């Protein structure tokens, strides 16, 4: 009898092209959009447009800018020579994310210990503070890579003036050393003296093979958001059936209303599972998320997440008085739960109280389980708690649906 309800739900969905597209095509599309937007914003593939005005235009400034734009994350907006006003205008109009002016006056670029104004001016938009910070970091790196001799010279001058004056012989040796550094820097000799190698970077998670970790995060985030939406839409057919009198008709059936509730619940789980599978197949095919290597834990997590969404949706709609109420209130709740639970904005960007609140949402538990699989490569034991909680949420929702539906007839 449950299979009969399941079949009715499946046929109804199959024969409704709009609902079919909403269930299986839209989630994948939205995921691709989210992944492209937020993977870039989190730093993975960010491209910063920089408007440059090199008012000094000498060999030193050329070495600095060559090194700066060797960084593939930075793009120069205009190859032609700009002035300060033009740079300011480009930033103001949003055609450049940030501006860099190499001043003609002020301290020399290769002698930071000299008197005068700083040789560089960063022109930024307060609305894009992150661009200013990124350019400042890139500039420091480029400066030490392009002009290590200038950095050492500044320190030597400081020591000479303030702490222990060098004698003429020492000054000659320092000059020779600085010349060797400059030559090594120009020739990019790996054996030469470079100041840009302060640190190396290593991923804390050994098994992660994804170019942009944010893509992995958003696959889970979008999946949970759409699971809730599609479960709500599917479960609302119960309200149509209640209003039409179908529940009265089924009240005399051997299985009663419970059969209807169970059949819908099982269908919503399968629908949700396929929906999330589509999202992760896109994530695997387009962004390299390691789905095949983690198929087992992923399947259990997705099943638990789909179960939670189906149970919550069934419990919720049985409590609603009308389809309109379910639609309005349900959409509002899903948006709030998804925002707090981390489906829209990564949880690590949230203030601690909101992060703590997230633990009452299924989204957070599902994201936690997906992160265990794809980002942290945890052992299976770490996923057991999220799985149990998601399953418990779903079964609690199913229980509520049974109790309320029985009272309704």
């Amino acid at each position, binding site marked *: 009898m449950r299979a009969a309800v399941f*079949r009715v739900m499946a046929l*109804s969905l199959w024969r409704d092209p709009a609902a079919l597209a909403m269930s299986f095509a839209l989630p994948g599309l939205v995921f691709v959009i989210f992944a492209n937007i937020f993977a870039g914003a989190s730093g993975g593939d960010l491209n910063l447009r920089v408007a440059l005005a090199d008012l000094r235009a000498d060999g030193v400034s050329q070495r600095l800018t060559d090194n700066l734009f060797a960084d593939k994350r930075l793009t120069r907006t205009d190859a032609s020579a700009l002035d300060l006003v033009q740079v300011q205008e480009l930033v103001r109009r949003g055609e450049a994310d940030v501006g860099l002016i190499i001043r003609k006056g002020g301290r020399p670029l290769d002698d930071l210990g000299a008197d005068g104004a700083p040789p560089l001016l960063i022109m930024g938009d307060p609305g894009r503070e992150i661009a200013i910070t990124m350019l400042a970091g890139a500039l420091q790196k480029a400066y030490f890579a392009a002009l290590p001799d200038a950095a050492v010279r500044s320190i030597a001058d400081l020591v000479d003036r303030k702490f222990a004056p060098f004698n003429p012989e020492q000054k000659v040796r320092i000059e020779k050393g600085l010349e060797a550094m400059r030559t090594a820097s120009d020739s990019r000799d790996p054996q030469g003296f470079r100041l840009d190698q302060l640190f190396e970077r290593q991923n804390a998670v050994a098994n992660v093979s994804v170019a942009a970790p944010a893509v992995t995060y958003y696959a889970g985030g979008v999946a949970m958001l759409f699971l809730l939406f599609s479960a709500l839409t599917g479960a609302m057919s119960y309200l149509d059936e209640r209003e039409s009198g179908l529940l*009265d008709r089924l*009240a005399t059936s*051997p*299985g009663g209303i419970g*059969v209807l509730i169970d059949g819908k619940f099982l269908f919503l789980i399968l629908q949700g599972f396929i929906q999330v599978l589509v999202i992760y197949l896109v994530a695997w095919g387009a962004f390299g998320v390691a789905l095949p290597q983690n198929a087992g834990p992923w399947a259990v997590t997705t099943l638990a997440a789909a179960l939670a969404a189906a149970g919550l949706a069934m419990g919720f709609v049985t409590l609603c008085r009308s389809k309109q109420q379910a639609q309005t209130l349900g959409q509002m709740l899903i948006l709030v739960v998804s925002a707090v639970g981390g489906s829209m904005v990564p949880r690590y960007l949230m203030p601690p109280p909101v992060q703590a609140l997230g633990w009452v949402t299924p989204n957070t538990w599902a994201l936690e389980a997906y992160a265990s699989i794809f980002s942290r490569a945890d052992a299976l034991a770490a996923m057991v708690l999220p799985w149990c909680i998601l399953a418990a949420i779903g079964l609690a929702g199913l229980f509520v649906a049974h109790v309320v539906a029985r009272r309704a007839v």
Partner: protein
Amino acid sequence: MRDTPPPLPLLLVEGAHASYGARRVLCGLNLAMRPAEILVLLGPNGAGKSTLIKAMSGRLKLASGTIAIGGLDPARDPAASRLCGIVPQNIALFEKLTAQENLEAFGRLMGLPARNIAATAVATLDRVGLADRARDRVGALSGGMRRRINIAAAMMHGPKILVLDEPTVGLDYEARAGLAQLLKDLRLSGLAILLTTHDMDEAEALADRVAVLVGGVVKAEGPPRELIASLFRGRRQVTLALSPDAVRRNPAVGDALTAAGLARRPDSATWCGLVTGSETTFESLIRSAVVAGAVIEEVRVRQPDLTTLLSTFVADDRKEAK
């Protein structure tokens, strides 16, 4: 030669009491129904019709009294309620499925053996005259056809009593006539049909018996014509619409009409009532109003019908309640 004894009641309700909280809905209801008859339940909203159907389908336990369907108590034995096929007022079908798929789905939900379902669906569609539309989606069928499938869905598990809640709401004349004929045909096949309706013409045309349910009890039951004849005993329904200021100008007009047994409708110049008598009685009634100075705008004299019957019981019930 001995007469054939009447068949045993398929439905027998005796002294049924039920309430929702403090509100009493069934107050000692008695009702019996035999196979192959159409019984129409008449009553105002809140009279207890839906509650009776709920109790028949086992969804409501009586506070006292008994209901027996085929000798079984639906509150204790689910097999009893399965002798009923419930046809809701709205179209309770799956729109995206074909007529046959719908019937098969309801067959499965009602626990029919899988091997019989397809054949039963075809046969049931044939019974409601829609065998040729088996593969059409329900959403694409006309209102009348959907009503027929709505009925067919309730017949899939082979009930003995078909319970229909206002089955002709929203149908045009032709579809109504077709549905009425279908119900008569189903009755001939042995089904007992319990019907609730607010359409008195439909009730009179279909019913073998009507039961007037007011205030949680059956006030009267029997074949419609017999019931009307026994209650009104030759009286006729008279309606007189006077000019608006007729009574104010001459109070004697009102006195004459009241004496004849008519009552004024609230906030109008229309007088109506049940009057015993012949043609001359009505003629003298009208003449006395005209002599008293009234201008008569409309006169209607007709046989009482089920509407009159029901409104009489409702008015009596309100008087008792006061």
